[in-house]
């Protein structure tokens, strides 16, 4: 199961072009969804205005090298190590999901475009990485869903009362869970069940990427931008926060 290319096996009932077109469609949906979300909210205008206001308050100007260094620190901390999360558990769960997703998506695209048919020998590390990615997302995701969601843990909401903010995590978990179920059923040999599982996998995946406009996806980009902006403000002296504390040194 772990070593065979799942998408190549689909060609039994789906031409390769179907999955390729679907993948392109999903990418377009994400890009369009994010852009529409930002346009609808005028987010870009907001960040630009904010940046201007903050520059007006600046007590000193940053040299180019300083700015680059702050950007690098932001990428290293907030992006690469999910440092935006103060809770260690959330940070770790997010890292699992983030890197799991990265592995899962890249290997999906590679398999669908570079190795679309069973005749082309897929190097086994690719599907293995795909499955590892799926498992990582599930580990981080179910951990988050059951034990870490703030509205459940801190606000007393019951675990299964789903709210609008759950759209992303539920469709993500639905997508990768049915991906795994599909693989297990497929390996078992029941063709009908495997088609049903695959159908549900595609359904959840479509909803996941199609509802980006209404989920928190765009914030994935806003947060590192704002984290960078805060570092710049501290360095330029335009921060509204008081200055004497090691809290800043850690950043």
């Amino acid at each position: 199961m772990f070593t065979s290319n799942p998408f190549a096996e689909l060609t039994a009932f789906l031409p390769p072009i179907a999955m390729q077109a679907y993948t392109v469609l999903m990418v377009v949906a994400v890009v369009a969804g994010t852009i529409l979300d930002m346009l609808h909210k005028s987010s870009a205008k907001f960040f630009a205005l904010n940046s201007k206001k903050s520059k007006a308050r600046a007590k000193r100007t940053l040299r180019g090298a300083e700015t680059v260094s702050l950007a690098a620190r932001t990428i290293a901390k907030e992006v690469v190590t999910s440092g935006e999360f103060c809770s260690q558990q959330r940070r770790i769960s997010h890292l699992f999901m983030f890197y799991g997703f990265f592995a899962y998506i890249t290997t999906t695209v590679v398999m669908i475009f570079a190795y679309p048919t069973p005749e082309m020998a897929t190097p086994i590390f690719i599907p293995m990485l795909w499955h590892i990615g799926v498992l990582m997302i599930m580990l981080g995701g179910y951990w988050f869903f059951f034990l870490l969601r703030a509205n459940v843990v801190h606000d007393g909401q019951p675990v299964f009362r789903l709210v609008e903010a759950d759209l992303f995590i539920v469709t993500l978990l639905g997508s990768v869970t049915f991906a795994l179920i599909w693989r297990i059923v497929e390996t078992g040999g029941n063709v009908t069940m495997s088609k049903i599982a695959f159908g549900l996998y595609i359904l959840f995946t479509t909803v996941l990427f199609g509802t980006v406009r209404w989920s928190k996806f765009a914030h994935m980009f806003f947060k590192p931008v704002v984290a960078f902006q805060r570092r710049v403000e501290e360095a330029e002296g335009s921060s509204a926060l008081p200055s004497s504390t090691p809290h800043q040194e850690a950043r």
Partner: protein
Amino acid sequence: MGLFSRRKTVTVDSDVLVIGGGMAGCGATYEARYWGRDLKIVCVEKAKIERSGAVAQGLYAINTYMGMHWDENQPEDHVRYARNDLMGLVREDLGYDVARHVDASVHQFEEWGLPIMRDPETGRYQREGKWQIMIHGESYKPIVAEAASKAADEVYNRIMVTHLLMDKTKPNRVAGAVGFNVRSGDYYVFRAKAVIVCAGGASHIFKPRAVGEGMGRTWYAPWSSASAYGLPIPVGAKMTQMENRIVLTRFKDGYGPVGAYFLHLKTYTENAYGEEYESKWYDQTKDLVGDYIDMHPVPTCLRNHAMLEEIRAGRGPIRMVTTEAFQDPHKETVGWENFLGMTIGQAVTWASQNIDPKHTNPELTTSEPYVMGSHATCSGVWSSGPEDFAPDEYQWGYNRMTTVDGLFGAGDTIGGSAHKFSSGSFAEGRIAAKAAVKYVNDLSGEQPQVSEQEYESLKQEIYQPLENYKIGRNEIVAGTVSPSYLLPMHGLQRLEKIMDEYVGGIGANYMTNEPLLTRGLELLDMLKEDLTCLGAEDLHQLQRAWELHHRVVASEAVTRHTMYRKETRWPGYYYRGDHPKLDDKDWHCFTLSRFDPESGEWTMEKVPVYHIID
């Protein structure tokens, strides 16, 4: 929280149950452990004890410290001071009792890590005034809460206690309490041998000056929802001095504290034209209250009175002259840090209006009325005093026990015991705890019994607002207007308007009389009936609903006591238009009330004031 949100009933057994984790509650929890080594001590708090209660944002001064070991003050001096400030009517036994113990608590706070300022010349605590010392108290509450956490067997946060439970085996004895978990919704039944009520006094029973977002900027914490009264009154505990509401002169809008300014920065007040005005009203005030105007310091209410009269005469706003004092950088720092450690909102208000006291003399105002037992006034339960010297009529076995067996109180809960503030409330918690542990030991194995029937029926009543909302919601499309249920905020605003207009709020210039009070009771009666129709959308609203219940109970007591006392004892706090003068002949006494849970009737009586200190 469960997977499918089924509501559980959680039973918690304890020997001593402390209700409320504020200053008094933390003092009680701490002391109970010392005396009750093997007892089970439980503290239950509606928020989280690290920041709950009136000291959430911190304090910049401890207002009750004798300094006995430096010969600064003796307890009897404090009794005289409090007595004077309350126009003669305090429980001198309770006051002496707190004053003799309070220094120990303050020294303990310092040992625990509270930074207390020192006078650079004498090395003693830096005095702000005769009774007050200055502290860097931003973390006062977390420090004190840590002490309580070390002492308690269990601290239950986010449980709103709604009712006390009575012993089914013996009349007039407490057996525990019930409430609900504000996060999970679970029902909590506390069974205890002794209960110490250390809950908050009453803010938000009179209409506040700011009515939009500004409703939140009450002088006393908005979460002081009168549970100190709403819990004991329905079980028949006698209450005293509920008419003794307090009105505070504070900085405009932000209600920031003026104590450090007057005492340490030596600022003073003037009217809109830069004139001193208090002395103008001396004769008029003397005509109202007699020799009380000649006391030193002048009683707080009389200073309010002069200010109110000056404003009524059209010479407001009243300002505090700060421009002189603020030229000194040290005083300027004290002036600002005074707010940052205690009432941050005042700093925000001034920053927003560009008020720098160095260049502008800020406005003062008088607040809406509040009812409480720990500050400069003393409304609360009628309690037994210290065993060693309380007069017979003030003592019935255990110190700080109410007229209900096994039910103790401390802080805002206890009436007649004024000028305690934070340290005095903590000390009073300790006093009540020692007595409560003694009471538990004296029970020797006898266990008060809660009635399952009672707490099951209370459970229905407690969750009813959730049911009302869910069902009533079907009738309307959306929005806040329903013909069949009231939102807690609706009930609160109605209560505040009734009290404001009929019981002497700001809208009436603190004036009331018997016809107004009678009408007020009628309107309160209808509000009480409507409380059965409260609708709560969620657990947060359910908490608001029960806070309203407690506020309404307290408000009725306030109204009845105000009607009973036929004189104006504290002009500047409130006025009886039909009895405008102080009447020491007939009213140099405490007012006492008791609500009878069986009949639903209130009885009022007078109790003598014994001046045990000369």
